[in-house]
């Protein structure tokens, strides 16, 4: 489904990793590991199409993602290091905007999604007053509303407390069970039931 061929990424004038090849099938989770600065974030952003690889190709259902462009972006949901949350909008407004930009139109689901990430009561607060963990939850709520097959998640578990970490693991499992794909980085161990693979960027 998602196929990476001979990928090489550079930053500045330094090669981070070279000739990386793997593929991820529906129902599979790929856990990318590596030391700080080894290039995990760079790889994920490249997989999204935000960064251009120095070499190699990324294919979705056999077609290069550069060719698919918008059609590929419509399949994925990316949650990066930054949450994409604007402090002066309320939690609900932020989520609304996020899903709208993501191409989904589901005003009704906003409240439900906030409920499911435990932010129902904070829905009308300006997001800048949310704690770090609450902000992370708000960003992750986009996954619930958008309903995209491919999830690309950069350290989704940071700042989450143990309870919600467990909830996240369940979500990932049910996404996999429904035939979704997940590519994820995490310094913590993932406890997701389902087909999971690991890959390390340390050379």
């Amino acid at each position, binding site marked *: 489904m998602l196929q990476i061929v001979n990928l090489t990424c550079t930053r500045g004038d330094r090669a981070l990793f070279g000739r990386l090849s793997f593929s991820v099938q529906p129902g599979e989770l790929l856990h990318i590991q590596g030391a700080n600065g080894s290039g995990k974030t760079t790889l994920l952003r490249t997989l999204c199409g935000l960064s251009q690889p120095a070499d190699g190709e990324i294919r979705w259902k056999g077609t290069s993602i550069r060719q698919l462009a918008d059609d590929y972006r419509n399949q994925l949901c990316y949650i990066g290091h930054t949450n994409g949350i604007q402090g002066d909008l309320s939690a609900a407004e932020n989520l609304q905007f996020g899903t*709208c930009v993501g191409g*989904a139109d589901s005003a009704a689901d906003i409240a439900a999604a906030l409920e499911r990430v435990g932010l129902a009561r904070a829905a009308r607060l300006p997001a800048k007053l949310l704690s770090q963990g609450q902000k992370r939850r708000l960003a992750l709520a986009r996954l619930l509303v958008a309903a995209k097959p491919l999830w690309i998640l950069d350290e989704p578990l940071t700042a989450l407390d143990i309870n919600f970490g467990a909830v996240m693991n369940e979500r990932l499992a049910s996404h996999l069970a429904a035939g979704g794909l997940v590519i994820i980085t995490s310094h913590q161990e993932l406890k997701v039931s389902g087909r999971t693979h690991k890959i390390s960027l340390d050379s």
Partner: protein
Amino acid sequence: MSQNLLGTARCIFKRDLILAGRKPADVATPLAFFIIVTSLFPLGVGPEPDVLSKLAPGVLWVAALLASMLSLGRMFAGDHADGTLEQLALSPHPLTPLVFTKILAHWATSGLLLVVLSPLLAMQLNLPTHAMGTLVVTLLLGTPVLSLLGSVGAALTLGVRGGGVLLSLLVLPLYTPVLIFGAGAVTASASGLDTKAYFSLLGAFLLLALAFAPWATAAALRISLD
């Protein structure tokens, strides 16, 4: 994808206006700058009304240009810092119209307000009343061009050290044609000459900028995010 492009664009526009409403200081500061700079000129040049009225078109236009340039900083900086820009770039809709919407929202909360404010400052500078209309129309045609051209510069200097001054260097040369014809039209009208030619030129600039700037900005944003 149940949401169409238009809906998403409306969503972005609404959000940017709401945000401007919640941070009135961000909107007000370029306006204050506009007022202050136009007020500095009489202090430098002297208070004689007829000298001032001669200067008025040039001063107003230069000040509007500088103010609109200074407001460029906030066009993408906030969204870049908090990651919203990434989400925008990953939207299934083409980036160019989305960026265009953002530029429009930015203009509505900066250039448009400059236009609204300009008659007041023109009065302070003794611009003849019959030239007031021309001033407003040229600004109405010209400030969107400034926002459009400026957005390219803003996108290129995102996250670059010393971005502010660099931005002004990039953008000012691009602004000169607008300035020449904008101020020229007002001067012509103040001395009772015809202004049609100026208007059609400014209109042509606007069309050109509308056609190319959003596309260039979108490309620049993708580069900045890389």
